[in-house]
C-alpha cells in the first residue's frame, strides 16, 4: 500500500525519484518533480488568462456556480503551489536522513529485543490489523470515487479537453492529500517504533513485578522467576525442576555467542551509533560474570537513547511535513464550510435544475469529505504517536515505583530512570506534532476547528440566497 | 519543626542579616520598605492598619465579622453582640432587597429608567437585577465564610509573627491603594446618584430615593469587597516577595566576585533558611488557596456583572456619539463615563493583583533554580523543592472557570468589543426598520 502511494507521489512529482540515493542522477530526479507543476501552472494560467476551457466561461454557468468554481480553483492553486514549493524545498536529504536514522533505530531495537528475548515470540513483521486494511481500502475507494466523478463530469462537458479543467479542479486536492499520506506514513512508522519500545519497557516492568523481592535472595529468586517467564512450557518445567542447574544459562551463553557476529557487522555499518552497544556489552558481560544473567533491564540505557532518537526523528518529520499541513487544513476548512453552505442553501432548494451547479456542489461535498477523512487520519496518528511516547514515560515511572531489585542494588539505574523522566519533561515542553506552531495536531484541533466552523456557518447561513436563485431563473 | 528552634537561632540570624545587607551590591533591592520598619511593632497597634478603613466599612455593613483582637498577632471570633449586629444588618439588607424588587415592579420604578428605546430599558433592567443578584450573593457568601476569613487573617498574622521573630522584620502591607479606591467608589456612586436624581422629572417619592440610594450602596459595597479581596491578595503577594527576596540572596548572581571563604560562610545558613522558605512558601500557598475559595464565587459574579455593565455603557456611549440627530445628552455621557471609569479601574485592580501574586508565587522556583549549590547536600535540598514544583502552576481561578491574571483583562475587553459590534449591528437594523416605518407612515 505504501509502495503504491510512493509511486503515485513520485509520478506526480511530490517526492524525488530515487529518493533513497543521494548521489543518483540529480537533474533527472528534480526535473521529474517539475513536470506536473508546470503542467498545472500551464492549465491554471491558461484558464485564467485565455478564459477558455473553464467552467466559469460556459454559457449555462450561473453566478453561484461561477463563484464557487472560482473559489475552488483558487483555493486549489494556493494549496498546490505551497505544497509543491515546500516539497521542492525538502529535497532528497530528508528521505535519506530519515531512512538512515530509522535503520539505526531498528538495529538497536532488534538488539534490545534479542536481549529481552522478545524476538522469539514475535519475530515476524507486525501483522496489520483488519482496521488497517479497511482504512486503506476506504481511503482508496473514496479517492477513486472522487476522481472518477470529477473526470466523468468534466469529460461529459469538455470532451477530450477535460484534462485541462481537471488539472485545476481535483488535482491540487489530490496532490495535497498524497503529501498528507506521506506524512501519515512517516508518522505511523514513528508511532510503530514507539510501540515497540513500549513493549520492551513493558517487559521490564513485568519482570520487575515478578522480581519484587528482598535483596538477600536476589540471585536465586531472579533466576527462577526469569526462567518462569520463558514462553515454552518445557523450559519452565525444567526450570522448576532444577533451579540451580546451569543448563539454561549455558543456552543463553550460546545464544549470545551466536548473536555476536551479526552485531559486529552492524557496528561496521553504523559507526556513529555503536558506542552504546559497547556499553551494553560491558554491562551484560559483567552481569554474566557475576552469575546474575542478562535480563531485559540491561536494555534500559539503550531504550532511553532510542526514545530520544525517535523523538528527534519526529521533530525532523514534523519540521518537514508540518508546514504542508497548514495550507491543507486551511483548504479543508474552507471547502467544508462552503460545501455545507452550498449543500444547504442551494442544492436542497434547486437541485436538478442545472447540471453544472449540481456538479460544483457535489464536487465541494465530495472533496470536503475526502479531505476531512485524510485530516482526521493525520490527527489521529499524530495523537497516537504522542500518546505512545507519553506512555513510555508512564511505564518508566511505574518501574521506578515498584523499586525492583536491580534498581535497589544500583544507584546508577535509579539515576538513569530519573534522568529519562526528566528528559521527557523537557521533550514534552519542546515538542508536539504541530503545524509550524500554529496549532497542535491532536484532537483539540478538531474541537477548535468545529467551533470556528460553527460560528462562520451561522454567519454564512444568514445570507439570503433566494433572490439570487430567483434571479438566475432557478426558482420561481 | 517546632518554632522553638527558630527562637534559639534568632540572634544569629539577625547578625547574618546585617552582614548580608552590608555586603549586597544592591541594598535597595534587598529591602526597600520591608526592612525599613522598626523591628518591634507596638503591641497596641490594630492589625492590618493599612486596610483599616476598608475593613471598618465592610464590618459596618455586615460583610465581615467584627472580630476581637486577642494580641497583636491574633484575632479572635466576634463577641455575641457584634455577631448579632452583623446578623441584623444582613437581615436588613435582605429585607431592603426584597422591597426594592417589589417596588421595581410597581409603576413607580419605571420612572427610574432614562429611556431612549426599547432595548436600552431591557438593558437597564438586566443591569439592576444583576447588581442585586451580585450583592445578595456577596452577603450570603460572606455570612457563610465568616470563620474562613478569620482563619486566613490568623494565618497571615502568624506568618508575620514568625518572620518578625526570625528576621526582625515587620512586613508592611503597602495597601494604601485601598483608601484611594474607596474614595473613587464613593465619588462615582455619589455622582451617579446625583445625575440620576437630576435627570428625573416629576415628583420624586421617598421610595425612589430609597431605591436609588440602596442601588448605589449595593454597587459600592460589592466594589468595596472586590477592593478588599485585592488588598488581601496584595498582602499575600508581599509575603511571597519577601520569601523570594530572601531566596534571591543565595542566587549565584549575588555571589559573583566573592572570595571562596565568603562564599562558604554565605552558603552555610542556606539549609536552615531554605527550610524556613519552603515552609513559608507552602503556608502562603495554602493561604492563597483559601482566599481563592472564599472569594471566587463573588468574583465570578462580579466579573459577569462588570462585563455586562462595561458592554452596555460602551454601547450607550457609542449610540450617543453616532447619534445622527446631533443631540448628545451630556448626562448620559457623564453617567456612562462614571460607570466605565469605576468598573475598568476595579477590573484592572483585581486582575493586576491576582496576576502579581500568581507571578510571585510561581517565580519562587525560578529563583531557587538560580541558587548555586556546590555540594551534594545543597543540591538535594534544591532538587526536593524543584521536583515538588514541577507542573505545579499556582493560579487564582474564578470558581474554577478560568484563571484570573493580566490576560483576563485582555480577554474581557476583546469580548466586550465583539459584543459591542453585534449590538451595534442590531441597533442599525432597528434604525433602518424605524426609518422604513417612518417613510411608510409618511
Amino acid at each position: 500500500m505504501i509502495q503504491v502511494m510512493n509511486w503515485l507521489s513520485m509520478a506526480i512529482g511530490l517526492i524525488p525519484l530515487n529518493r533513497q540515493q543521494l548521489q543518483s542522477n540529480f537533474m533527472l530526479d528534480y526535473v521529474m518533480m517539475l513536470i506536473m507543476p508546470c503542467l498545472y501552472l500551464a492549465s491554471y494560467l491558461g484558464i485564467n488568462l485565455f478564459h477558455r476551457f473553464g467552467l466559469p466561461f460556459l454559457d449555462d454557468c450561473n453566478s453561484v456556480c461561477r463563484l464557487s468554481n472560482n473559489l475552488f480553483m483558487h483555493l486549489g492553486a494556493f494549496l498546490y503551489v505551497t505544497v509543491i514549493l515546500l516539497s521542492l524545498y525538502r529535497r532528497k536529504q530528508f528521505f535519506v536522513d530519515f531512512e538512515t536514522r530509522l535503520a539505526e533505530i531498528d538495529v538497536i531495537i532488534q538488539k534490545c529485543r534479542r536481549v529481552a528475548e522478545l524476538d522469539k515470540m514475535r519475530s515476524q513483521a507486525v501483522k496489520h490489523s483488519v482496521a488497517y486494511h479497511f482504512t486503506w481500502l476506504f481511503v482508496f475507494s473514496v479517492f477513486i470515487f472522487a476522481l472518477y466523478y470529477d473526470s466523468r463530469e468534466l469529460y461529459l462537458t469538455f470532451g477530450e479537453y477535460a484534462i485541462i479543467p481537471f488539472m485545476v479542479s481535483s488535482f491540487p486536492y489530490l496532490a495535497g492529500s498524497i503529501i498528507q499520506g506521506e506524512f501519515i506514513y512517516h508518522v505511523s512508522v514513528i508511532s510503530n517504533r514507539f510501540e515497540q519500545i513500549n513493549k520492551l519497557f513493558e517487559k521490564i516492568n513485568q519482570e520487575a513485578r515478578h522480581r519484587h523481592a528482598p535483596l538477600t535472595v536476589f540471585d536465586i529468586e531472579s533466576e527462577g522467576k526469569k526462567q518462569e517467564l520463558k514462553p515454552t512450557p518445557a523450559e519452565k518445567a525444567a526450570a522448576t525442576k532444577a533451579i540451580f542447574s546451569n543448563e539454561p544459562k549455558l543456552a543463553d551463553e550460546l545464544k549470545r555467542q551466536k548473536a555476536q557476529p551479526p552485531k559486529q557487522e552492524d557496528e561496521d555499518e553504523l559507526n556513529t551509533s555503536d558506542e552504546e552497544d559497547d556499553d551494553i556489552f560491558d554491562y551484560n558481560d559483567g552481569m554474566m560474570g557475576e552469575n546474575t544473567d542478562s535480563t531485559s533491564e540491561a536494555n534500559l540505557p539503550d531504550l532511553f537513547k532510542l526514545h530520544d532518537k525517535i523523538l528527534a526523528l519526529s521533530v525532523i518529520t514534523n519540521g518537514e511535513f508540518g508546514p504542508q499541513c497548514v495550507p491543507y487544513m486551511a483548504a479543508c476548512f474552507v471547502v467544508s464550510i462552503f460545501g455545507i453552505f452550498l449543500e444547504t442553501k442551494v442544492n436542497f432548494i434547486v437541485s436538478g435544475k442545472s447540471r453544472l451547479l449540481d456538479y460544483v456542489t457535489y464536487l465541494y461535498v465530495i472533496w470536503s469529505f475526502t479531505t476531512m477523512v485524510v485530516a482526521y487520519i493525520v490527527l489521529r496518528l499524530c495523537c497516537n504517536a504522542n500518546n505512545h511516547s507519553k506512555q513510555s514515560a508512564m511505564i518508566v515511572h511505574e518501574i521506578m515505583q515498584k523499586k525492583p531489585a536491580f534498581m535497589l542494588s544500583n544507584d546508577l539505574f535509579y539515576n538513569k530512570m530519573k534522568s529519562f523522566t526528566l528528559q521527557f519533561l523537557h521533550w514534552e515542553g519542546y515538542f508536539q506534532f504541530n503545524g509550524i506552531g500554529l496549532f497542535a495536531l491532536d484532537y483539540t484541533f478538531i474541537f477548535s476547528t468545529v467551533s470556528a466552523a460553527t460560528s462562520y456557518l451561522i454567519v454564512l447561513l444568514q445570507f439570503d440566497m433566494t433572490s439570487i436563485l430567483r434571479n438566475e431563473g432557478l426558482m420561481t | 519543626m517546632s518554632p522553638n528552634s527558630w527562637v534559639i537561632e534568632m540572634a544569629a540570624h539577625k547578625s547574618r542579616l546585617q552582614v548580608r545587607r552590608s555586603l549586597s551590591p544592591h541594598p535597595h533591592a534587598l529591602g526597600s520598605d520591608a526592612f525599613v520598619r522598626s523591628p518591634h511593632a507596638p503591641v497596641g497597634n490594630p492589625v492590618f492598619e493599612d486596610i483599616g478603613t476598608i475593613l471598618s466599612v465592610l464590618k459596618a455593613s455586615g460583610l465581615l465579622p467584627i472580630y476581637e483582637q486577642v494580641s497583636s498577632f491574633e484575632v479572635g471570633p466576634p463577641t455575641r453582640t457584634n455577631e448579632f449586629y452583623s446578623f441584623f444588618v444582613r437581615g436588613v439588607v435582605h429585607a431592603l432587597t426584597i422591597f426594592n424588587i417589589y417596588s421595581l415592579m410597581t409603576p413607580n420604578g419605571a420612572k427610574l429608567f432614562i429611556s431612549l428605546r426599547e432595548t436600552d430599558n431591557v438593558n437597564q433592567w438586566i443591569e439592576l437585577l444583576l447588581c442585586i443578584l451580585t450583592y445578595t450573593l456577596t452577603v450570603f457568601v460572606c455570612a457563610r465564610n465568616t470563620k474562613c476569613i478569620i482563619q486566613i487573617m490568623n494565618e497571615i498574622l502568624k506568618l508575620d509573627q514568625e518572620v518578625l521573630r526570625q528576621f526582625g522584620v515587620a512586613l508592611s502591607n503597602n495597601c494604601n491603594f485601598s483608601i484611594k479606591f474607596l474614595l473613587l467608589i464613593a465619588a462615582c456612586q455619589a455622582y451617579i446618584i446625583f445625575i440620576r436624581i437630576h435627570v428625573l422629572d416629576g415628583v420624586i417619592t421617598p421610595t425612589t430615593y430609597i431605591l436609588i440610594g440602596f442601588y448605589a450602596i449595593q454597587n459600592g459595597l460589592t466594589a468595596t469587597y472586590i477592593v478588599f479581596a485585592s488588598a488581601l491578595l496584595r498582602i499575600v503577594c508581599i509575603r511571597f516577595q519577601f520569601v523570594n527576596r530572601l531566596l534571591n540572596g543565595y542566587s549565584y548572581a549575588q555571589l559573583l566576585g566573592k572570595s571562596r571563604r565568603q562564599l562558604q560562610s554565605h552558603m552555610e545558613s542556606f539549609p536552615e533558611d531554605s527550610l524556613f522558605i519552603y515552609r513559608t512558601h507552602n503556608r502562603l500557598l495554602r493561604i492563597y488557596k483559601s482566599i481563592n475559595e472564599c472569594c471566587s464565587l463573588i468574583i465570578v459574579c462580579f466579573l459577569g456583572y462588570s462585563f455586562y455593565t462595561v458592554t452596555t455603557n460602551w454601547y450607550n456611549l457609542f449610540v450617543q456619539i453616532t447619534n445622527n440627530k446631533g443631540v448628545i445628552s451630556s448626562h448620559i455621557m457623564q453617567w456612562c463615563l462614571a460607570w466605565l471609569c469605576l468598573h475598568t479601574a476595579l477590573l484592572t485592580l483585581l486582575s493586576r493583583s491576582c496576576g502579581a501574586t500568581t507571578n510571585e508565587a510561581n517565580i519562587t522556583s525560578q529563583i531557587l533554580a538560580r541558587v548555586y549549590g556546590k555540594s551534594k547536600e545543597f543540591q538535594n535540598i534544591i532538587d526536593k523543592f524543584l521536583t515538588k514544583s514541577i507542573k505545579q502552576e499556582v493560579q487564582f481561578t474564578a470558581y474554577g472557570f478560568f484563571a484570573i491574571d493580566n490576560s483576563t483583562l485582555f480577554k474581557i475587553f476583546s469580548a466586550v468589543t465583539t459584543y459591542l459590534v453585534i449590538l451595534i449591528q442590531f441597533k442599525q437594523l432597528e434604525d433602518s426598520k424605524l426609518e422604513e416605518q417612518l417613510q411608510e407612515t409618511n
Partner: protein
Amino acid sequence: MSQVTPMVQPLLLQFQQLFFLSKVVGVLPQDLTKFRHKNVLEKSRNGMIYMLGMLALYVGLYNLLIYSFSEEDRTLKATQSTLTFVIGLFLTYIGLIMMATDQVTALFNQGKLGELYERIRVVDERLYREQCLVNNSCIAKRIRIMLVMTIIFELFILLTTYIELVDYTQWLSLLWMVSAIPTFINTLDKIWFAVSLFALKERFEAINATLEDLVTEHEKFQTWLTGDADAPEPHTADSSETQPPQYDSNLEYLYKELGGIDIGSLRGSGGKNNKVAPIAHSLNSFGESIQTPRKPHQPNPNPMMNMAHESELSNATKVEEKLNNLCQVHDEICEIGKAMNGLWSYPILSLMAYGFLIFTAQLYFLYCATRAQSIPSLFRSAKNPFITVIVLVYTSGKCIYLIYLSWKTSLASKRTGISLHKCGVVADDNLLYEIVNHLSLKLLNHSVDFSACGFFTLDMETLYGVSGGITSYLIILIQFNLAAQQAKDAIQSFNSFNDTAGLVGAATEFGNESSTLYDLVTTTMMTPSNY
C-alpha cells in the same frame, strides 16, 4: 567584571548603521559619539531633547496632514454609513499613537538599554570562557537586509500611493510624505528588538551546540576506544561496573584536548594551557569580523576557573563545572530575554494592536472601495488592490516575524534541557547523571516566555487565534456594510416604487460582493502561512 581587556566583541558593534539611522530619525536618544568610540549606549541629554523635538515635529506634521486631508472626509460622514466613518475616525491616530509609544518608551529606557547590551556582552564573555563561540557577523547582515526591506517597502507604498491616488497638482499634497513616518520609525524600533532577540536565540543555540558537541565527541571517542580496546574490556568484574565510564571520560578529556587543535577552528580555542596554536588558527579561519579584539593571550583570571583549579582535576567535576556554568549562562540569557521583553512590552503591544486593527481595516476599506463607496482619505491606499497587498504584507510581516522569532527563541531555550540529558546518557556515568538531573530540574524552571504586557504570549498559537479573529471581524463588518446598503437600497426602491429594479440591483450586487468576500477570506488564510 573588573576585567578591562575585552575578550569578545560587543554585540553593539554590529549595530553601527542601525544606530546612526535611528539616531537621525529620532528613535533612540543615546549618545552618538560614545557609541562610535566605545560601542556603548549611554544616556544623553542632548539626544533626549533632539528626540523630543523630533517627536513634536512629527506630531505637528501628522496633524497638519490629517487636517489638510480632512476636507475630503467631510462628504464621507454625510454620504456613508456611520460604520466606515467611525472606523476611520478611530484609526486615524493609531499610527501616531504607536510611534509615540515607541519613542516615549525609548526615552524612558535609555539607560536600561545600554545595561541590556552590557549584560549580553558579559554573557558572551562567559560563553567564550566555556569555549562556546557566538558568531555575530550575520547579525550585521541581517540588519542590513531588514533595513533595505523596510526602505523598499516604505518607499514603494509611499510613492505608488502618491502617484496613483493623491492629487499631486496641489502643493499641500506633498504632506502625504508624512504619512510614512510613523510606520518607518516603528519599524526601525522593531528592528532593534528583532535583532537583539535573534542574538539571544543565537546564544541559546550556541549553548545547545556546545552540549551536542560534547556528545558527538564522546561518541567519537568511544568508537575509537572500542576499536582499540575491544578485547580486554568484557571481563571486568561487577565491582568496577561503573568504572569504565569514568575511565572513558578521563580519556575523553585527553582526547578533547588533542582534538581541540584540529577541530579548533570550529570550537575556538582549546583548553587552558596550550593556547597559542589554536588561537591563531581560529583567528584565521574566522576572519576578522568576529573575534578581532581578541589579543593573544592573557590567562584569564576568573573565579570559576580558579575554583576548578583548586578543586580536584578529576573529570566529572570538570564537566560539572562546565555544565553548571552553561546552565547559569542559560539562566542569565533567559533573564536578559525577560528584561528585553519588559523594555519593549508597550511598543509590542501597540504594534500588535496596530497590526490587528490596520489589517482588518485595510481589508474592509478595500471591500468598500470595490463597492465604489468612499473611504477615509488616510486609507486611500486601499483603493488599489495591489498596494493593499503590499501594505498588508509589510504590516503582517513585521508582526509575524516578531512572533515567529519569539517562538523560536523560547523553543531554543527549551531545547537546552534535551541536549543536556544527551550528555548524561552518552557518558552513562552515575556521578554525571546526578549532576545532569540536578541541572535539568533547574533548567525546567528557567522560562523565557515573551508576552505583550502579560496580555497574550507571543507565540504561533496566538497568531492562529488572531487570524481567526481578523476573519470573523471582517465578516461581521462586511455584513454590516451589506445590511446598511440593502436598507438604503430598499428605501430607494420604495421611494421610486420600482421593486423589480431594486431586486435586480441587489442580486447583481451580491454576486460581486461574495466574490470579494471569498477573496478576503483566502487572503487572510494565506498570509499567516506564507510569512
